[in-house]
């Protein structure tokens, strides 16, 4: 289900979000290009999940605009175009793996053999072919989160918003999934993927570093290393965070 819109996948301007009494995103501008894997990185609590919720249109915002594939985030035109995987797996515990994926496939309009083929393909992509008939409550945590990912992959949406899809997975699976993400981007899909694991950053086409709801950097992985002079993504990130803290201190 590919959309032929040729602007950026996501355009955000002046976004403000308050959660509880906290200014989680005080004012954010960002453009996410189409057809790329964009990594969303940042410390715990920096607002990665909140920003993703804004992009899929489930977050109540205080101000600003979020435009996705040319439409306001969350508008009905986008319901088939945007796939969302929440940080905590959101699937039905008392359904089998296959029934879960098939239900989310039906929700985006797949039927008949098209549906069956899409479910089979997705089971292979998340490496759960042998587990199709198993109930979610009998799976391991990593397997469950892969079903949650599969439920978004099955409809092949134009934009995939994936909140920490590789957490708790082994290196082989992580590599395979990142290869799948790259393939999808090569076919023209856009992906926003959040992660804690900095060595995954090098697998992205672009990186957005978030801290306290602000964009610290919006760069390619090469630019990040060049700009900070660090040897790896981990060190580069720490350099940037320290630098930002310093500028803030000297400004006040």
């Amino acid at each position, binding site marked *: 289900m590919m959309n032929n819109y040729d602007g950026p996948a996501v355009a955000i301007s002046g976004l403000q979000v*308050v*959660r*509880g009494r906290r200014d989680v995103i005080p004012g954010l501008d960002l453009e996410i290009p189409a057809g790329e894997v964009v990594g969303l990185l940042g410390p715990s609590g920096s607002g990665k999940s909140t920003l993703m919720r804004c992009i*899929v*249109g*489930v*977050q*109540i915002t205080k101000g600003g605009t979020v435009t996705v594939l040319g439409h306001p985030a*969350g508008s*009905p035109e986008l*319901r*088939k175009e*945007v796939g*969302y995987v*929440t940080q*905590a797996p*959101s*699937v*039905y*515990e*008392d*359904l*089998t793996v296959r*029934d879960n994926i098939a*239900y*989310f496939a*039906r*929700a*985006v*309009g797949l*039927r008949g053999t098209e549906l069956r083929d899409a479910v089979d393909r997705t089971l292979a992509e998340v490496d759960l072919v042998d587990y199709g008939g198993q*109930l979610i409550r009998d799976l391991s945590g990593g397997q469950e989160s892969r079903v949650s990912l599969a*439920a978004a992959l099955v*409809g092949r949406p134009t934009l995939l918003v994936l909140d920490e899809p590789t957490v708790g997975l082994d290196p082989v699976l992580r590599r395979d999934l990142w290869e799948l993400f790259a393939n999808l981007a090569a076919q023209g899909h856009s992906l926003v993927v959040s992660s804690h694991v900095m060595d995954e950053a090098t697998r992205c086409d672009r990186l957005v570093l978030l801290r306290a709801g602000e964009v610290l950097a919006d760069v390619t992985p090469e630019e990040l290393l060049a700009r900070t002079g660090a040897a790896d993504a981990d060190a580069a990130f720490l350099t940037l965070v320290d630098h930002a803290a310093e500028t803030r201190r000297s400004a006040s």
Partner: protein
Amino acid sequence: MNPGLTLATAGRVLRQVRTDHRTIALIIVVPCVLLGLLAWIYTGTHVFDLIGPALLGVFPMVVMFIVTSVATLRERQSGTLERLLTTPMGKGDFMIGYAVGFGLLAVVQAVVATGFAVWVCGLDVAGPVWLLVVVAVADAVLGTALGLLASGFARTEFQAVQFMPAFLLPQFLLCGLLIPRDQLPTFLEWISNLLPLSYAVDAMKEITRSTDPLSAVAGDLGIVAGFIIAALALASLTLSRRSA
């Protein structure tokens, strides 16, 4: 609203129940056990003929209310509801899907419970027995609609379960099961006129009492349908796509 999406949800809800054999057994067996117990307690009197039909209307509503409010609360907590509402699935598809799924389950429950009451416990029914099943299914859908509404106000499973006595016990006490509604104190009769279960029980009583209950039952069913629509409309307000 899209019939394909509504049916997809109904099918999914039934598949979920199917993996839970104990719940199915409870839904089917418990009404029969309770009806049998009552018939036994009142052996040799006419009391069972008076309260048996009312109970046939009460069970489906109570059971579907609890099952729906817990299931919907779980959807909210696990994030599946939020995720579904980002897809083309509409709120109507979601709610009607639940109503259809549990409505079908209620058909099985109603057939078994009615058959048991009439042919095992010897409940006297003047009107057509199939009409008892129709009213029971309407009650089940009412229970589902009220459960969808109640779950919008529950933050935890404990609260969801507590809504059962809060939403249903007053209806149970005032529906004409304990004493006929026209013998209630005026103010309470007035309240009971505002509660949906009263009309469900009226319909059930009419069927057991009258050989030609169709027109009276149709009126009561119309009122129950009105409550169902109102409950679903209110429940849809509690299903928001966006949250803080």
